[in-house]
């Protein structure tokens, strides 16, 4: 079987180079894709994102990428969202007003409550794995991963949660439902542990 090909969605925002570099490091064949009509050519899709929700979702809709992604999702293609990419997969977000998301996961994106902790949540924090999933296979126990975010995902169905972390209180930082997966932290910036997660994603496509 041919090596899996991964599309990194370029919608004008986000740190694409880092994700590309990380896939190169784990021997995943990835390319940056701006054309919604070409998504069918890929085995898996990565939705990255550094930015604010409102502009990101508007940009995805305007280019036709949102519809194209949804169509790929319905065919069962594996899609991984990172950081804002994960949040975009949710029902809605409260960032700078209420905005509708792609709605693939029944979850709301809300501000991290400032319960005696610094906001944004920036830095390395323990990842608590709450259930088995291919993405978290063979990780060391409660590894440190790198976060940089002000909003968090709140899943309606606790079964969707794969991993949590504690900042003020515990919250979801990895989810998965069928072929849709999201990661709140930055695997491409989390050294060996992050690269292992991306390598697991590549392997899951084979």
């Amino acid at each position, binding site marked *: 079987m041919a090596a899996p090909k991964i599309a990194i969605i370029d919608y004008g*925002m*986000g*740190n*694409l*180079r*880092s994700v590309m*570099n*990380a896939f190169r*490091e784990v021997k995943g064949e990835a390319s940056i894709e701006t054309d919604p009509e070409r998504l069918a050519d890929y085995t898996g899709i990565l939705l990255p994102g*550094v*930015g*604010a929700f409102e*502009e990101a979702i508007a940009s995805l809709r305007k280019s036709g990428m949102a519809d194209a992604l949804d169509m790929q999702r319905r065919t069962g293609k594996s899609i991984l969202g990172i950081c*804002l990419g994960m949040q975009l997969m949710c029902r809605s977000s409260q*960032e*700078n007003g209420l905005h509708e998301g792609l709605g693939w996961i029944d979850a709301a994106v809300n501000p991290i409550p*400032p319960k005696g*902790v*610094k*906001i*944004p*949540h*920036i*830095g*390395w*924090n*323990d990842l608590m794995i709450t259930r088995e999933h291919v993405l978290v296979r063979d990780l*060391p126990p409660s*590894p*440190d991963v*790198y976060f*940089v*975010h*002000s909003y968090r995902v709140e899943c309606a169905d606790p079964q969707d949660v794969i991993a949590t972390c*504690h*900042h003020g209180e515990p919250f979801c930082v990895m989810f998965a439902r069928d072929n849709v997966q999201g990661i709140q932290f*930055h695997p*491409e*910036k*989390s*050294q*060996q*542990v*992050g*690269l292992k997660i991306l390598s697991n994603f590549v392997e899951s496509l084979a």
Partner: protein
Amino acid sequence: MRKTRLIAVLVVRDGQVVQSVRFKHTNVIHYDPVHAMECFNKWAVDEIVILNVSRDAESRDKFAEIVGNICSDCFVPVTVGGWITDVDYASRMLRSGADKLCLNTVFHTAPELVTRISRRYGRQCIVASIDIKRAEDGLASVYVDRGRIDTRVAPLDWARRAVELGAGEIFFNSIDHDGNRKGYDLESLQQICNGVEVPVIAFGGVFRWDHLAEGVTAGADAVAAANIFHYTEHSAKKAKKFLFNAGYPVRSN
């Protein structure tokens, strides 16, 4: 539990990594910034800050190229700063692989630009770099434009305003302490840490590992240093071991 971050700073002037002493740059440490970064990455720093301290804006293209080269082989977070004066260049930095943007002079010259970039990329992406300097009477004020312009604004007022404008983190430095081997300006650092809700990175003056601990005790979320990392072998590992033994949580893997 969130870990105390250890941050290595690369001070880049006209394409080379330089030593900074009170914002003056006489020694070139590395001719190739990528080589300097490779040492850090292997030696387990948690984050890298790359600052373009060149005196003119013509350095921007070369610096963007350096950022791209560094990020292509670096799997820790990268913050970049220096001459980010428009949205296009901010965007170029992020596309080159940077995770956060360190802004300084624009807080003074074009505050609306800070808000615009923050709206576009989220406040977690915006780091307000604050350079302070004390007058002869000891009163601290914030300087911009590579330490050339005295804004006559008190550090805490500046920090609060920076957060209002859209900063999600503070990068604190003291021109008097920069490269001066006496540790951070703890008084101003503590004042800012206590006065804002966002994380604060302490920088400027680290010469011994206990200077890092002093920064954490003053309330800093992350402790940064530059020169010491270049001149001490396996420095990041030693620094982390020191922090760990002193009872501070550090990244293990």
